[in-house]
């Protein structure tokens, strides 16, 4: 049973095709790393899957539900940390969590307890009553992640969640997400930090120029390459990146 299943998912902006007919299969309870170079179509794919963009073609299902017909039902079970973090500048961190709790129909006592735990975990308790407008980038990321986790979703979309977060919080979030997946949740993660993918993810999808060029478990992905090859080297092979030596720039070497 797959948490995310797409068939020929396509998104075009005029003549430019950002996502070109991809077939994703993300198993339930998996930690799925969605990789690709800048501009490959990772964020556009997430926006299509979360309903922010309307796909130009193809079909998809989330948690075995039709996101178009069962829009609200799907949203109740899905948490998202999008590219722009999706936060109200003029709400405090605590009020942001309160907003999410209200729209998800979580009762006040439960919402308060969950908020406290999340704010403590993210080390945001002391800034909980400050406006998000006054938060640093890392703090904004943490509160966006807290907002995504608060309703205890069954599927979590995380678009570059670890960039700008300090090492301690990063470690805590990794542990939290691992526990979440062990508990049956599914994480769909995009990141450029391959070490994080290597450590956390059990399934990988690689997108390049809008097309899915590789997909499978970490073991399957490694099996296709040279023995002893790192994920970074395998990734470079798949996306066909030029060897760094061939790109040496004479004038830069001094």
């Amino acid at each position, binding site marked *: 049973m797959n948490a995310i299943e797409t068939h020929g998912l396509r998104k075009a*902006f*005029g003549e*430019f095709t950002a996502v070109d007919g991809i077939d994703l299969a993300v198993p339930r309870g998996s930690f799925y790393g969605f990789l690709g170079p800048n501009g490959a179509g990772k964020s556009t794919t997430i*926006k299509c899957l*979360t*309903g*922010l*963009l*309307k796909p130009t073609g193809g079909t998809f299902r989330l948690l075995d539900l039709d996101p178009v017909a069962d829009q*609200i*039902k799907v*949203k*109740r079970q899905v948490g*998202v940390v*999008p*590219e*722009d*973090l*999706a*936060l*109200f*500048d*003029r*709400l*405090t961190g*605590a*009020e*942001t*969590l*309160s*907003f*999410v*709790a*209200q*729209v*998800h*129909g979580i009762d*006040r006592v439960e*919402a*308060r307890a969950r*908020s*406290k735990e999340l*704010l403590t975990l993210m080390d945001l*308790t*002391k*800034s*909980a*009553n*400050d*406006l998000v*407008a*006054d938060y640093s980038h890392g703090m904004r990321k943490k509160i966006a992640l807290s*907002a995504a986790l608060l309703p205890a979703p069954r599927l979590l979309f995380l678009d570059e969640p670890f960039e700008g977060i300090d090492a301690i919080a990063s470690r805590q979030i990794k542990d939290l997400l691992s526990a979440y997946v062990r508990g049956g949740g599914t994480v769909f993660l995009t990141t450029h930090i391959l070490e994080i993918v290597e450590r956390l993810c059990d399934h990988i999808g690689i997108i390049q120029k809008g097309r899915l060029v590789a997909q499978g478990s970490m073991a399957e992905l490694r099996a296709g390459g040279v023995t002893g090859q790192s994920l970074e080297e395998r990734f470079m092979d798949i996306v066909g990146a030029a060897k760094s030596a061939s790109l040496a720039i004479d004038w830069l070497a001094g």
Partner: protein
Amino acid sequence: MITTLRGLRALTWLRWRLLKNSIAGARKRDSLEQVSRALALVVPLLILVMSIGTFLAVSAVGFVGGRMMASGVLEMASGLLVLRLLLGLMLFAIVSLAVVSPTQSTLSRYTRLLLLPIPRRVLHLVEVVASLGDPWVAVVGAGLTAFAAGVLAGGRPIAAMGALVAAGLTVAVVVCAASLAGFLVAWLMRDRRRGELFTLVFVMAFSLLSFIPAFLTGAVDEPDAGRAAGDTRVAKEVHQINVDEFDRHLPAWTHYLPSEVYGRTIAHVLAGRRADVLGGFGVLAGEALLLFLASARVHRQMLGALEGDQSRRRTTEIKLGPKPLPWLSAGASAVAVALIRGSFRTVRGRLTILLPGPMLALLVAVFKRLPQETWTADAASRGYLLFGGSIVFTFYAMHAISMNLFGSDRAGLTLQLLSPVTDRELAWGKIVGFGAVVSTGIAVCLIASVAVAHAGALPYWIAVFLGAAATFFLISPVAIWFSAIFPVASDLSKTGSGGNPHPFPMVAGTLCTALFVLPTIVSLAVAEFWFKSAIVAPLLVGIWLVIAAAIGIPLVNVASRSIGARRENLALVAQGK
């Protein structure tokens, strides 16, 4: 020197590209979005056309004035007085705009520039020189240059040279003064709370203090006092303007204002007093130099403050939001509360609530001091008219919120679009939130109106309130439609164009508001002049309210469908694309 020139060239190119790219817009989306962008260009084009008109008119006046004064057709003292006053007013406008400008933009562009190998003094110089592109400065420069050209055409080439030098120095003083004021405020704005408080206080004080001269002037009181004494001869004398007397009454500090120094220098130029002319040039050059150095100092201070940290309140008690609002689903309630908080916590939101009522009340207070036979004083005796008028202005002022209900949330809109909230809940949440904000504005209007002019029968006051409710019901679906079709990622913490909605809904919303208040005005007039009974007014407006609610409420549900239809575009706008 080469580094400075290179930096200047690079930054000039940067400004030009930013302007060009902002006009060209981003990647093409759907056709409706293209129409929306095309309409957004109409207002800047209108401003450009009007600026060119002003530019030409001021140049023509300057040229004719210069020629007439040089040839002796126009008496020098009177002509110079007009020139000094006009120039003084323009200088005031330029410096005021320079103060307002930093409240409308962010300083983030400096962060990138500071990382480049460009000396800070070059950055400062570019900023100062760039002020020459300010339309008002260009108008002043054109007017003063045309004046010098007029003097030349009047057959006084040496005097024309002097006038040209004085014009150049005056523009330099103005540019440096505007830069100093702008940098000072930009430095203040570095701290969000301090900056927003400054903007709020500045805009309110600037708006309200403009009425002070009307209160201080004794001239308007004289006829009234005379009538009270039964003396019909008062106010018959026309006081002739005497330039010497006017100058004697000016405080000493005004002699150093650039407009005054320029006026004196031109007088010396036309009279051929060379030593005094050089003295005038010296004062203007000295002022320009002092202001330039001061602005450089403040500019350094401002750049140094860019990377400063903001003070934060430390707390251990977590304050969550309130309970859901009654009669609303939890989702709609959360949306409404977010809108209310956003409006109450932003400069633009606060101004729309606090400003229209007191502004109009002060205007009426000025009217009340005018002679009794004027229509203004007659209108001021009907307090409910003031109440109604200020409500209309409140609706207009709130277009920043109501005509951009989704775009003004910016990234917050993405959160709402990702939340399990239906389009109908989103629409009703927005409308209820807007209702709460507009109600607060109406309450402020009521307090201000009662304080200034509480006259008028109570039923009329009630009728005005019911009329406001009717207008709200009808403007609500319009607000949803316009906000969904013409969204703009606006920032309500900015008082200028950065906080404005799309120009089309702003204009169309103004017309709609005028149309929707019309039945209330007609009902009030019918009650007063036809039925001659105050009690009829709330009855008639009450009927209108029921009709408006019967039309408006179902239309909000219909309008909410436009959110679904424009969801993708709204999501892209929320991301600033």
